């Protein structure tokens, strides 16, 4: 059976926890910013740069490229506190979580020197260019093509749901460089590219989101020229590289904290100790349930990070955690809505009201983005082996 080892934090790790909290209390005092829901919070490049100055971006990347040679657990600790705060992490989140690590792992020396220091400083922002109109869960069926052209490549096709493509700097795009008819298996013949979103021929158009925000985009590549030195990793090895990228994308604290602030703000609103009224049993039920689940998800998800630091490849474990974590994020929204006597109102501009409205509308996406729960269950099921068979 799958096992998760409980984690003890070292003294340094505890200190880091405290440092991040102190930093946030100073930089983002309550009432001075609009807290957001998890990693789809606001974006603020100036805030990202401050984090970079503190050494809290690209933490696990090598120091020679501007990183800090720290651990996945350290990154987890910082990420967790930022999410709890509802801090404006939108600018750097993807770059810090996955683009940086993937470039560090598969990039050329020149790519590492070009991109990593500026990811670690909070300057550069990245997007994920995987999904296409006809290829969602069945990602390997994708059809965006990259064809050799002299020294470089020409990319044509359409990516979709590309979060922040209209505002960010680069996209790591998975493309087909060998047609399926020639590659045999659809997972062969795929290649990743680092593409400048300002390239001629590239158009990113926001797709209005359910709450009327505009974050994810359709990205059309109309014969976009990409220099040869922007191939990421090996030509034809895109599928394996992309799979390893997904491991960074799953299992972290952003997969169970999306609706956390709703609970904290509800407690701030209804749990005030200055009133004589005893908290209602409904409130106690909601809080007891929520905290018990956050607590165990914290420990499970932290255990995945520790495993990564020990050289493990916890793909199964992170799928298990993401699947239950995102379902729980939705359960929290449902529980809060059921508890309240009033319906969410889109004109309510209080912190709680705004979070509630956003969560009520956007919660279906929690179990879709980053791989649907159905797909995650299939991944996890592969790790559930009968007794006697080895993993």
């Amino acid at each position, binding site marked *: *059976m799958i096992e998760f080892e409980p984690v003890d934090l070292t003294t340094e790790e505890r200190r880091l926890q405290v440092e991040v909290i102190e930093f946030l209390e100073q930089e983002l005092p309550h009432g001075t910013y609009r807290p957001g829901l998890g990693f789809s919070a606001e974006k603020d490049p100036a805030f990202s740069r401050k984090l970079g100055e503190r050494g809290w971006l690209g933490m696990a990347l090598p120091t020679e490229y501007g990183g800090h040679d720290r651990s996945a657990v350290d990154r987890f600790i910082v990420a967790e506190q930022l999410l709890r705060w509802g801090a404006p992490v939108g600018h750097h989140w993807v770059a810090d979580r996955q683009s940086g690590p993937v470039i560090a792992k598969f990039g050329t020396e020149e790519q590492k020197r070009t991109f990593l220091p500026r990811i670690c400083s909070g300057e550069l922002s990245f997007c994920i260019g995987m999904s296409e109109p006809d290829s969602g869960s069945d990602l390997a069926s994708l059809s965006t093509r990259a064809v050799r052209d002299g020294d470089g490549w020409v990319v044509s096709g359409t990516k979709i749901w590309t979060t922040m493509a209209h505002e960010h700097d680069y996209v790591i795009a998975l493309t087909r460089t060998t047609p399926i008819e020639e590659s045999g298996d659809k997972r062969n013949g795929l290649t990743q590219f680092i593409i400048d979103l300002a390239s001629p021929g590239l158009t990113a158009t926001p797709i209005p989101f359910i709450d009327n925000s505009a974050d994810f985009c359709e990205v059309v590549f109309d014969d976009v020229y990409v220099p040869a030195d922007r191939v990421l990793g090996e030509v034809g090895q895109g599928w394996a590289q992309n799979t390893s990228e997904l491991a960074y994308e799953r299992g972290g604290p952003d997969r169970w904290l999306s609706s956390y602030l709703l609970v904290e703000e509800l407690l701030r609103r209804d749990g005030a100790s200055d009133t004589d009224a005893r908290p209602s049993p409904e409130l106690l039920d909601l809080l007891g349930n929520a905290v018990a*689940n956050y607590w165990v998800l914290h420990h499970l998800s932290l255990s995945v990070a520790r495993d990564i630091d020990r050289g493990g490849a916890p793909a199964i474990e992170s799928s298990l955690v993401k699947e239950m974590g995102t379902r729980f994020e939705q359960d929290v929204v449902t529980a809060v809505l059921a508890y309240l006597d009033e319906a969410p109102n889109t004109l309510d501009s209080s912190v709680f009201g705004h979070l509630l409205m956003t969560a009520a509308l956007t919660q279906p996406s929690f179990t879709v983005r980053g791989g649907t729960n159905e797909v995650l269950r299939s991944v996890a099921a592969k790790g559930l082996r009968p007794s006697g068979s080895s993993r």
Partner: protein
Amino acid sequence: MTTTHTADALVTETVERLLTDLSTQGEIEHAESTGWSSTVWAALAEVGFPWVGIDGAKGGSGGTLYDLAAILDAIGRHAAPVPVAETAMVGGWMLAEAGLDLPAGPVAVAETTGARVVDGRLVLDAPVAFARHADRIVTLMPVGPDGIHLVSLRPDQVTIVPGYNLAGEARDTVVVDAPANDWETSQISDDLSLSAPWNSIRHRGSLSRSIMAAGALASMAQLTVDYTNDRRQFGKSVASFQAVQIHLVTVAQCAVRAKMAADVAVRAFARGGSLHEIAAARVVVDDAITIGTRAAHQAHGAMGVTREYPLHQLTRRLWSWRQEWGTTKQWRRELGSTVVERGADELFALVTEHPQP
């Protein structure tokens, strides 16, 4: 890294070997006629396991809470019908702490702060696990003007009305025959309020159930994977159907959640930390029991609800343990109250603070 949080390998291996040999499907079935397995108890008692975690100087076997947790985890995994939690985790520990005699046999604990008088006799107002097999039945009672006492009753001082939980384990009603001045008692120190010793006992009892349930859920998850891989329908193993895989993933998630919750709660408790982890563990574990047993049974089809196949030996225990040493609702509200007391600014600390090694 510190190794203070792990059980002695010899304890882990020994309990595993003993229970694999003795807590068999047949023995567990047989135990339902008497409400326990004297065979399994005798084997565990011979190596001192029912007194692990109790100070050697006070008559126990010594060892750590981690050793005891490993034993209770194995008891859960093997569905062993024996009062080890009752003896080592709660009753025997209470006697030893109070300086009263630790008997050679099991100690049962009345999960109650009170008793009621019926026809002039004292009836403990909650069922007592394994009372009929115990050498002593202990409870806390207000006695006389000087406060709360730990009361230790001998079998000849009580009448037992037999009862059983859903798993066929003895859960008896105890009527106290002996007059109060014949009881062996020990006054709980004056500086403790009525609720404090009870609170500590209640938490120990609840933690024992979380540990055992996590063990049983782990076995249940593996059993379900094994069965669905063996069982073939439509020309292939049913585990290859995506709809069945959802059940397998659900049971596995329930097992890992429960195990993590129990492990962290044990660490927090062993390190003298706060008690809210024990409440949180029960909320997580009870939910895992409800969801996990449903998925496991569904994946087994009709075979799961027969007496011939061992799934029921795990699931009936899980359903029973879920309602012992406090209900989910009580623990959830208790945790909720802690959250309200700590306030919104401290909410995330409750989630992320770790028991100090």
